[in-house]
């Protein structure tokens, strides 16, 4: 009887990029902060709220807002390149669905690889999806932010609460606060 090896049905030898985070700025003073929304309900409101908090704490140079044309896949190359050219750090939100949670994490990783510190915000119902995407991108240690689910259906006050809860992590990931320091 001939004995043969079983075949791997997954494919192999996939190329992935590096897994080094971008260099963190010494401070946010004078920097341009990109706010990348994905059209999901409350994404813009959440980003504006974070911008307000940053404005109140640091002498940020400028905020620039951008919108993806489709939430389910990563940001298109042209917009990505524009953001990389125009911004020093980026905050992107909000991955509160199956495809957009993974896409938001993929965007965050792409910005880090392009040298732009990035905060990717998803909702915590999609932690596993975000983690799976980070592994798939070959960047298993990528740290993103998971706000308490849901986001889409929240009013202003509740959204404010969500932002307050994750703000220390936003600041830490951006490098605005040294590790261990809590605002």
């Amino acid at each position: 009887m001939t004995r043969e090896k079983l075949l791997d049905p997954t494919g192999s030898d996939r190329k992935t990029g590096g897994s080094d985070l971008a260099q963190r700025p010494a401070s946010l003073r004078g920097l341009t902060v990109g706010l990348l929304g994905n059209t999901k309900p409350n994404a813009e409101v959440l980003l504006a709220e974070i911008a307000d908090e940053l404005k109140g704490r640091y002498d940020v140079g400028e905020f620039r807002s951008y919108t993806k044309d489709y939430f389910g896949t990563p940001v298109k190359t042209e917009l990505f390149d524009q953001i990389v050219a125009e911004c020093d750090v980026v905050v992107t939100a909000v991955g509160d669905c199956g495809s957009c949670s993974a896409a938001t994490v993929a965007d965050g990783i792409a910005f880090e690889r392009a040298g732009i510190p990035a905060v990717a915000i998803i909702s915590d119902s999609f932690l596993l999806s975000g983690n799976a995407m980070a592994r798939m991108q070959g960047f298993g240690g990528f740290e993103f932010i998971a706000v308490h689910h849901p986001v889409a259906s929240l009013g202003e006050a509740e959204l404010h609460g969500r932002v307050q809860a994750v703000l220390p992590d936003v600041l830490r990931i951006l490098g605005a606060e040294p590790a261990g320091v809590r605002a």
Partner: protein
Amino acid sequence: MTAVTDDLLADMAEIRSAMEYYARQEWTDGLPVVPVTESYLTEFLAQTSRDPGEVVFAIPHLNRECTVWLAAVNAAMAGCLPEYFPVVLAAWDAIAKEPYPKRGIWQSTTGTAPLLIVNGPVRARIGLNSTGNVFGSGFRANATIGRAIRLTVINVFDLHPHQLDQATQGTLAKYSACIAENEEESPWAPLHVEYGFGPSDSAVTALVVRSCMHIEARHTRAPEQLALDFANTISRTGALIHETSSALLVLGPEHAQVFAAAGWSKDDVRQAIYDRAVNSRASLAAVGKEAISRHTRWRVPADHPDAIGDRASQGPEPDLVPALVAPSAILLAVAGARNAGVSTVIETFGVRGDTPSSIARVG
């Protein structure tokens, strides 16, 4: 009492060891898979002239692509016979033409599945069921061709449930969904002929489906009554995430004959359903779906901060809201047994009527 067969002996330890190996690797939909080795795979690859390295479908944002070789490994694991493989390849060609699979729909909470409709002589050649129990079990070609797609989605594209596949509930069609059209008992030209193929061609149409609903109308010979039953099913408000819905109507042969006996063409059927698939503004408001979001164009209540009016609100009859963008948002096929007035509405994902037909030739 023990009943044993006389004709075959098996090495149980060996069989279990292979089955459990695949399960441990999570290379499965939960059911046992067929072990595949190079020599077995050769029989599948011999069924096509395409290069084993050719990419049949890619999802760039997942950094994954399916080659002819990988499609074959997963088809064999799914239990396909080698002669089914050209149909599996055509299925991938059709899926590649669908707008949503490459845009993350298989990661989505909506929880869709690919549905395949096979037309042409290949149906009889490989024993695809197009008649009784067409959505049910019991037919190897239907069961395993549909499953070949699912296993590939899991294994090649890494879309494991609870991981990158974030379906809230999913659908039963995620195990396998492959039917053949009952061309022999259809009063009209088959689906693939509508799309310009010849009757002697074989082709696979692929759709992204959400749900599968049963319509019983055994009492009527009036085509208008039937059309209204289908329209009511298609226009249900629960289906409306987007501004409009879209559907595949799989008519049982008896229902198809009711329409044909009245002299209706497929387009007449589509038009009649389109005309009747309408919600009143008030019935949409009652479920909070009377407006759409200016960002996503998903339905939202009028007092939502992102709310804008839908297309109908700008038209001559703003209080009557069509559930379909056009009659062509309904795909029509005939399948099942000619034994009762039963049909199925399958809700598809995406705004049909303005998207390319996702159909590909077999072989």
